[in-house]
């Protein structure tokens, strides 16, 4: 797991899920799903931002590659060559993902009991003492 996902999980997602009363095993399933969704979203943003001919060529190239390592290298090189793809990924992480996380947090606070809200605050302050 990258530092990015470790930080996101530790600082925000785990406290949210725990405060919602989700058991530890299900928390891990959810965290794994979120990681996959975020990577899939970023991957799609990159592919969709490229000129269609470039994305088509990249997809066809990747299909011909045998190993996962080769596919990842080809994908990363394809994204790096495209300013539009690079910018789309950056925009996703800096703007769109935080908006999604805000919606998730608001969804929780709109429906949580006072006890759950208090528990969330306690967990968040424990993980993010500087925000207290």
């Amino acid at each position, binding site marked *: 797991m990258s530092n990015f996902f470790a930080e996101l999980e530790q600082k925000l997602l785990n406290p949210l899920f725990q405060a919602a009363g989700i058991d530890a095993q299900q928390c891990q399933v959810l965290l794994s799903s979120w990681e996959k969704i975020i*990577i899939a979203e970023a991957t799609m943003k990159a*592919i969709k931002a490229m000129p269609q001919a470039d994305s*088509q060529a990249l997809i066809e190239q990747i299909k011909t590659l045998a190993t996962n390592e080769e596919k990842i290298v080809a994908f990363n090189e394809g994204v790096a060559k495209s300013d539009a793809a690079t910018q789309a990924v950056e925009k996703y992480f800096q703007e769109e993902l935080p908006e999604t996380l805000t919606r998730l947090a608001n969804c929780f606070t709109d429906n949580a009991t006072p006890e759950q809200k208090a528990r969330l605050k306690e967990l968040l302050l424990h993980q993010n003492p500087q925000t207290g």
Partner: protein
Amino acid sequence: MSESQNLQEKLTLDSAIANFTTEKQVEALVDPMVSELVKAGVSFSPSPIPITNIISGLTQ
């Protein structure tokens, strides 16, 4: 319809996120090519995302 348009049609990940989807649902939602890349381990090293404001809002 082009392949990229097909990919766009298939992706409704925001709704998946909003509904706390399961891993199997994630795999079903994303295009097979993207799913394959995710399984292969495609990742990103983004700058730290601005979640401090979200956390601050929740701890007030």
